[in-house]
């Protein structure tokens, strides 16, 4: 049951809590998990004109590991292209935070959240391009 220092640090001092306007064109929002399962993550990315993720925010309902996993990925995605961000693996998250085996699903959820946010951003971009045509 002993948690790693990194995990505790992310739980106690979570980075990038908050929300962007989810209707904004440059924002991608991922909402994954379910209240009944005890975890819900909302992860948002803000993508700059240069295609780099310039900011990220999250809100999480879940255990300390879920909070730490989402906090960590918001840090990781910043400054990356969305293609790069998409390559973040749950195993990297689990390894970095030294998640205990029963908490691996938290890192899976965090990976899903990035993917969902990116998908949302891409869908918006495609829609915008379609509208422009």
């Amino acid at each position, binding site marked *: 049951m002993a948690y790693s220092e990194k995990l505790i640090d992310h*739980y106690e001092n979570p980075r990038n809590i908050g929300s962007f306007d989810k209707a904004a064109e440059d924002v991608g929002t991922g909402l994954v*998990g379910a209240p*009944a*399962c005890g975890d*819900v993550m909302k992860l948002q990315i803000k993508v700059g004109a240069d295609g780099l993720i310039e900011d990220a925010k999250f809100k999480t*309902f879940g255990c*300390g590991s879920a909070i730490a996993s989402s906090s960590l990925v918001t840090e990781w995605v910043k400054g990356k292209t969305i293609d790069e961000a998409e390559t973040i693996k749950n195993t990297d998250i689990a390894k970095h935070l030294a998640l205990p085996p029963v908490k691996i699903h938290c890192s899976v959820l965090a990976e899903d959240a990035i993917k969902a946010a990116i998908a949302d951003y891409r869908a918006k971009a495609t829609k915008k391009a379609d509208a422009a045509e």
Partner: protein
Amino acid sequence: MTAITQIRRNDQPIYLDYQATTPMDPRVLEAMMPYFTHKFGNSGSRSHAYGWEAEEGTEKARAQVAKLIGADEKEVIFTSGATESNNLAIRGVAEFYKDRKNHIITTVTEHKCVLDTCRHLEQQGFEVTYLPVRKDGLLDLDVLRAAITDKTVLVSVMAVNNEIGVIQPLAEIGRICREKKVFFHTDAAQAAGKIPLDVEALNVDLMSISGHKIYGPKGIGALYVRRKPRVRLVPMIVGGGQERGFRSGTLPTPLCVGLGEAAEICMKEMDAEAKRLKKLQERMLKGLQAKLTDIVVNGDLEHRIPGNLNISFAYVEGESLMMGIKNLAVSSGSACTSASLEPSYVLRALGVEEDMAHTSLRIGLGRFTTEHEVDTAVDELVRHVNKLREMSPLWEMAQEGIDIKSIEWAAH
């Protein structure tokens, strides 16, 4: 004197998990001490003074336990704890009477050891009915009455629930069982010493008691087995034939003495303690309600021991809350299952939605809880609930007026 003079050091968290286990009362430890040292004999040794002295200790303890529940001392058997008592009561009766009757009735909110014993008996060919409880956690007597058949041998209903602290209507259940000539077992691990129990008035035939839930030691418990009308049991542990043949094994004299002393203290101080705890319970609840919205008490508040609160803090996941309130030792469910991630089956049985079940904390107050500790706990809980709500997407949605149930969540 070797007694503990202070229960909690300042650097230790505030203990609010009295349903998991209780600290030992220093007076109990004091009573036990001589039996660890110079009165160390085997109570089964009839040939010398060490044995007699030990036997005197165990027999005094037996009488103390009997008195707490209005029983005769001959009806009290020492066991290794409430888990063993429950196993022995249910399995022992079921196996003894199996040629005539094969049906057992219990409730879905029983302690895991009762439910597991029943499931095991089902595999052996017994029939078990698991009765639902109402939203307040209490058993509906009409439902019980309707479930009893001419094949029913035993009804097992806990006196007080370990997670939500509600008190079942024992007198009524006892009356129904007696009327229908069915044995009545009650798991009183959380009730003994906290509410008045009288096996005669309640028509209880078997009652399980735990030492470490009543400020006594771990590793000891008792089972009350009625002599008139007689209840027969197949023993689980056989050997030297101790405890009227119901339970073999050398009696752990210091533990027996501790249980006896704990029972006596509980009996003497029950009224005053209950009043004090009721005030603390109210203080805790009012303190939380004054500063937090969207909190729900699970289980009936009135028919409840004063030392328990089970509260759902909506939109805040229980485990993350526990991780935050480091200065408080509380639990998100019963201790034996608290390492698992499943929401409480007790809360689910009350019809608490899974999302709310994930947000619940069990807060146990007891003999050594102070007003100051309650106030500190309230402050700490409020602070962390607010902090976690600030980072909860569900709280955000609720504030925006979005109905969380209207969202199609992808279950994972």
